[in-house]
């Protein structure tokens, strides 16, 4: 099997408060079938053997569904390729000998913890502000057909629900806006009858929390939709804007 080598320029940062810098590395003996994270594992293995500090990066499931990994590779969130997370990116997508730039998500509300690891707890606080529904959990679960939901609504809600909260939308956005993330959550719940109870409150509170966290505003540029590994569409943002309009036009501010 062909063996590949790469020149890497990786962001190294000791901790939250230290300034970081790009550091050059070389890695060889990489299989085209290695994932990007496996390539970094091999680099770290070599670094540890040489007694150097390995590069810190996030990963968990390594099958594209958990949203933990997320690297800014050659100027793009999750690197080249469409609809994939960093762990699904394979080295065959790069040219042998190519220089690869690896950086963390960069946004004020996503402070770097170390090297390529950022703190995305701002997303958790946005979820806590309204990304939930109230359900009765006492007794037996109700039959699935007690509340009828049109198939199209269920499908659209599911499409929005596939958001894994990785933060690629924020990373790629010129304004570091989390609008696509919030829109996916708002849309997912607004489309289902169970989510209508808190619909007005939800859209207001999640967007307010987003702004409190310091994310920018939406300029409808659409880079988020292109870089989203789950291909969450801008239609969700349009739906959220309609939900917000309904909420602010309501005569009752406590809705």
């Amino acid at each position, binding site marked *: 099997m062909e063996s590949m080598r790469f020149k890497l320029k990786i962001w190294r940062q000791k901790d939250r408060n230290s300034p970081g810098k790009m550091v050059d590395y070389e890695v060889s003996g990489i299989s085209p079938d290695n994932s990007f994270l496996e390539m970094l594992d091999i680099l770290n293995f070599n670094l540890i053997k040489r007694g150097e500090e390995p590069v810190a990066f996030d990963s968990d499931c390594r099958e594209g569904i958990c949203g933990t990994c997320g690297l800014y590779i050659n100027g793009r969130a999750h690197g080249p390729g469409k609809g994939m997370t960093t762990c699904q990116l394979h080295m065959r997508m790069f040219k042998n000998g190519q220089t690869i730039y690896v950086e963390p998500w*960069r946004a004020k509300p996503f402070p770097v913890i170390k090297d390529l690891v950022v703190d995305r707890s701002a997303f958790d606080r946005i979820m806590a502000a309204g990304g939930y529904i109230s359900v009765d959990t006492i007794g037996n679960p109700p039959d699935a057909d007690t509340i009828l939901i049109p198939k199209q609504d269920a499908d659209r809600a599911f499409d929005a629900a596939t958001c894994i909260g990785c933060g690629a939308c924020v990373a790629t956005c010129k304004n570091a806006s989390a609008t696509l993330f919030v829109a996916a959550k708002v849309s997912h719940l607004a489309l289902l009858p169970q989510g209508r109870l808190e619909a007005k409150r939800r859209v207001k509170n999640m967007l307010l929390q987003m702004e409190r966290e310091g994310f920018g505003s939406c300029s409808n540029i659409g880079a988020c939709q292109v870089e989203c590994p789950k291909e969450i569409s801008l239609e969700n943002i349009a739906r959220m804007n309609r939900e917000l309009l309904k909420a*602010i036009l309501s005569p009752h501010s406590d809705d």
Partner: protein
Amino acid sequence: MREELKLSAVRKYLMALSGLFLCLFLVGHLVGNLQLLETSYEARLQFNSYAVFMNKSPFIKVLSLLTYASVALHAFIGLALYWKNRKVRPVRYYYNDPGASSSWYSRNMPLLGILVLGFLLFHLSDFWYSYKFGETPYMRTQDGKGVILENGHAAYGVEVREGVAYAGDMPVGRVMKDLYQEVVQTFSEPVAVFVYLLGLGALGFHLLHGFQSAFQSLGLMCGSYARLIRLFGTVFAISVPLVFALIPVYVFFRSLMGGG
């Protein structure tokens, strides 16, 4: 005030509404200006009478106030959001490839907007200011011996002082200004034509993103509407500035040929 009214998304509603209102203004302005493509004396008289109407009509006055208000609101909110968004990424990417996921004009709406605003101020100082307060010549009768009054009547043997025609000491009415001639003179200068083409180019790219962005902000870019709005927006953004640009280019080449 209700806290949610301060959301950027709410400001974007106002941005969208003012922007779409300005798109309507563009259509009206364009239709009126197409009168400049005709060369006859009657066309010139008609255009200048149209200018008098646009200055006198109370309905147009309200519309023009709304237009100025929309420009001010649109520019103010746009620049305020731009200023806020500048602070969201204190450490910038060492290597970035934004072109892979978005168009340059959608990322540079503030810059394009500032160019359009600059062009608007230039355009207003060019025609609006000189029409209202400046050097716009008086509209003469076809034989060149008399002047045309604002009510459309010809007046011979009168003396014009500060825009009013006098027969002896008797004022007979305000004199119509020859805005048509002013436009022809301006567009015989290649530099002015170049500035207009530049301004209209910036407007075209601003609209290419702005038109559909307005519908997205209002929550209408959805399902079957989305394709229609995108298509209409693209046609609008290309055709409106292009037809506007036709006027200076056509007048310039006509002046080169020695025509009026």
